[in-house]
């Protein structure tokens, strides 16, 4: 099928061509809304892709010292969990005792070298700059429930203190930039999540396989038409609030899936290879496909959420973590190549988040829940080849070790989010609303983009 521009696509869509015959009038009614949201957009196109590493990645172990006292400290702290044979990196800003990449992340090394991968070092959830002395004196203002999985996942997703209603900075960012962000600006390949839930917005949750079609409504028979009408009636507003939420979700699922499925029929076939056995790569492949039809969907800005679990390496870290990191590196690298292929590499930035970093000390064959860690930021617009923040010393008893090698962050994750949001198009006033705690930190300390 030849590639249509958005205007042509919409015209055909409204006429009911290429499969849209199956859309109900209700669904067609939503199309102009998608168009309107596109019109209100800031210029051009940009996408943020959050890669969530569930369980708390031992991300301090992704970036390693190469020599000197730092290496000795690392080996003394990590003991049997110390990683050997790191890949030497050459950051633009020299780091004492060098900077090495975990060998399982080898696929990312060329991206660091060519300047598209940046490293955020010593980052964690922080309310304000925090010192060991404050922590020890019990005077530090600490995020609630440090070291608890779901609570700390939420701190990364929120980007602010919990509010009622609760919301995430991914969705809030869109809601600050658009009056009514279109559903297709907020897409999850990894289920419901707080990062993409806003005042009104919630993620459109699809799977790596795409979007399904309703069997019962297939075709253009009289029967299908009857069932479609009945189903629209069925998913009308309900008195019971839980039933109403269910009805709304289902009516939206149907209309939105039809729009996405139709748009995806226009996706160019990507030459970039994604490993079929890598579930994260498959999620990111679908993100790349969605990005390839963003012009048809008419959204100028998109946030995507992908993720994988297994990072809670209390056990068997030496075998489990390399496999996980290899999966991440392979998937993110393929995704970056796909954005290059689409000519959109400078419009798309992917980055990692995770519950927390982990202890430097071992529990025998694994690590426990920690705090500060390192994150990856990848894209053609990223001023990469460098480390932002600090490479925290992997030394037990250091001035940032609050015990057992749980390290106090040097950088707030809101500083990382601020830089991402600014690139995405948030202005200063939006940034303040988006990340209130940013005011407690040096706003210019992290500038990840060219």
């Amino acid at each position, binding site marked *: 099928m030849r590639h249509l521009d958005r205007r042509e696509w919409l015209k055909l869509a409204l006429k009911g061509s290429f499969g849209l015959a199956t859309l109900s009038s209700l669904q067609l009614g939503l199309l102009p809304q998608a168009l309107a949201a596109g019109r209100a957009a800031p210029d051009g196109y940009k996408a943020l892709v959050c890669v969530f590493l*569930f369980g708390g990645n031992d991300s301090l172990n992704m970036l390693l010292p190469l020599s000197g006292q730092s290496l000795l400290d690392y080996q*003394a*702290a990590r*003991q049997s969990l110390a990683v050997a044979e790191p890949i030497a990196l050459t950051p633009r800003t020299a780091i004492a005792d060098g900077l090495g990449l975990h060998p399982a992340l080898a696929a990312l090394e060329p991206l660091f070298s060519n300047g598209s991968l940046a490293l955020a070092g010593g980052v964690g959830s922080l309310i304000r700059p925090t010192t060991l002395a404050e922590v020890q004196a019990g005077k530090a203002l600490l995020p609630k*429930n440090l*070291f*608890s*999985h*779901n609570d700390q996942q939420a701190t990364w997703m929120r980007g602010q203190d919990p509010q*009622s*209603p*609760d*919301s995430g900075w991914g969705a809030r960012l869109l809601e600050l930039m658009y009056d009514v962000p279109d559903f297709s600006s907020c897409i999850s390949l990894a*289920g*419901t999540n707080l990062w993409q*839930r*806003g005042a009104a917005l919630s993620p*459109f*949750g*699809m*799977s790596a396989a795409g*979007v*399904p079609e*309703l*069997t*019962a409504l297939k075709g253009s028979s009289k029967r299908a038409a*009857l069932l479609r009408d*009945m189903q629209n009636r*069925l*998913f009308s507003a*309900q008195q*019971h*609030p839980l*039933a109403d*939420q*269910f009805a709304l*979700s*289902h009516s*939206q*699922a*149907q209309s*939105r*899936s039809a729009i996405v499925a139709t748009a995806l029929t226009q996706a160019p076939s990507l030459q970039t290879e994604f490993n079929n056995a890598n579930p994260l790569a498959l999620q990111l492949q679908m993100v790349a496909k969605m990005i390839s039809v963003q012009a048809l969907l008419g959204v100028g800005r998109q946030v995507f959420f992908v993720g994988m*679990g*297994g990072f*809670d390496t*209390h*056990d068997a870290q030496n075998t489990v973590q390399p496999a996980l990191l290899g999966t991440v590196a392979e998937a993110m690298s393929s995704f970056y190549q796909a954005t290059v292929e689409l000519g959109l590499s400078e419009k798309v930035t992917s980055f990692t988040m995770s519950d927390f970093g982990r*202890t*430097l*000390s*071992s*529990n*025998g064959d*694994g690590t*426990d*829940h920690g705090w500060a860690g390192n994150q990856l930021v990848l894209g053609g617009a990223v001023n990469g080849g460098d480390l932002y923040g600090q490479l925290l010393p992997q030394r*037990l008893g250091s001035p940032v070790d609050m015990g*057992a*090698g749980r390290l106090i962050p040097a950088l707030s994750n809101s500083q990382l989010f601020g830089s991402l949001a600014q690139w995405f198009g948030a202005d200063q006033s939006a940034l303040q609303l988006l990340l209130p705690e940013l005011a407690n930190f040096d706003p210019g300390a992290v500038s990840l983009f060219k």
Partner: protein
Amino acid sequence: MLVVRTMPTQLLICTLLLQPFCGLYAAQTTLNEVEAARLLQQASFGPTLGDIQAASQLSAEQWIDWQLSLPATTHSDKIETLPEQKTPVPLSRLETWWRIALTAPDQLRQRVAFALSEILVVSDQGNGLNNRVIALANYYDLLLAHSFGNYRDLLQQVTLSPVMGTYLSHLGNQKADVQNNIRPDENYARELMQLFTIGLYQLNPDGSRKLDDGDNPIPTYDQQAIEGFARVFTGWTSAGTSNFLKPKADYLKPMIPFAAYHEPGEKHLLDGVVLPAGQTPQQDLKQALDLLFAQPSLPPFISKQLIQKLVTSNPSPAYVERVARVFSDNGDGVRGDLAAVVKAILLDEEARSGFSGVARPFGKIREPLLKTAHSWRVTQSASPSGHIYLRTLADSHNQAPLQSPSVFNFFRPDFSPSATLQQAGLVAPELQLLTASNALNMQNHLYTQTVGSIEGLVANPTQYQMLARFSPFADVLQRQGLPTLLDQYSLLAFGGAMPAELRLLLSDLASGLGNISPAQKAAYLWYFILISPQYAVQQ
């Protein structure tokens, strides 16, 4: 006025007097069909006409007592290796689970064990349990064995389960080795407190958070307590092991202690309790679990979650408190009596009359698994081979027994999907599973299992294809007409309270479908009920 019309006199008096013990009113009278159906929604894998008839002979309490008396239908001994396999595969365990959910007589125990499996979570997704089929079924049997037992015993058995020991990595956990910077593993210590016993914040008996003078919630534990409990859970490994460092693989028998690998020092736990140095692994473990079990937050923490999984997502604080008090003391001075707790949950006035008598929106979203189980039970679905062996269930349901993505279960008890619900102070935990793709996949699954699987109309069924018996409903439609069929469906799906607008829609659907076979018509109507937002909420 609806309240007055539907409420028995005893209840009306109770409500007026606001006496908590009045919750037992329903225990005394024989259930009518509607009451039986409502009880079976909460206490089984879904009411069938047969089960409704059987329960209608009894009072609610008699039915529960009968269920409590039934022996457990265990899973691990019923796993079958299917012809194409050499050994049981993960699907074999699910196959067994389905057979039992659909047909076992001990429905209440199976439903409670399923609820417990979503609280005391282990999973074959990762952590070395992927192909431990029998071991996981054995863990499920452990939950079944204690579903009506004592929560303290359950905690003991769960803690010593090699499956839990593998999942949360305290199997093989050993004392500190200062020279090598090795400390005890904190995994089980943390999740035991956060998820299995007391939660993050101290609770009042009604499940609300206790507040300090500054109106802040009060944490139940700190990092020091985590480290203390981590030291407790050292020195345990697989049964049959002779060298602690080379554990023998035994995923069935409880773990055994090795004093030489147990942390010998003091353990600082909660409330200033310090376990003395030099105790045995058994002593430390017993005292640590006793301490957690005695915490005042435990009864409301566990009671509320069981209420949410069986009856309603947003119970009134008074309901939680009534159940939590039974958890604290069953009336004979016993704490943690789960049979008494389950009974208190199901016989409470809010459970029995909540749909009409309580201001808070009553009910809970039905989990995808419960929908399918119910539909298959109602339609007596079975495959030609007798097995329930479907590879696609994971995609459509987004859940399967003991396959949670993490120890935090498929959904959290405090999950609320939208600003609207949050502002109303409402949670809908099961909606955490719901994405757009899942919504459509589930609809397609239900369509396939109803309209697409009518017994007698499927030409060449494969050996594992589930065939739904719609002929009894087709007979009703043919002989007694549509209103009678809708009454029957209303009883099965809504405890007799099918909303009028849905009934109207189904009537319109039936006439719109025109001249199709009665079985097909019955199947279409049932499919629309299954996907309806009204049925989505178990009330």
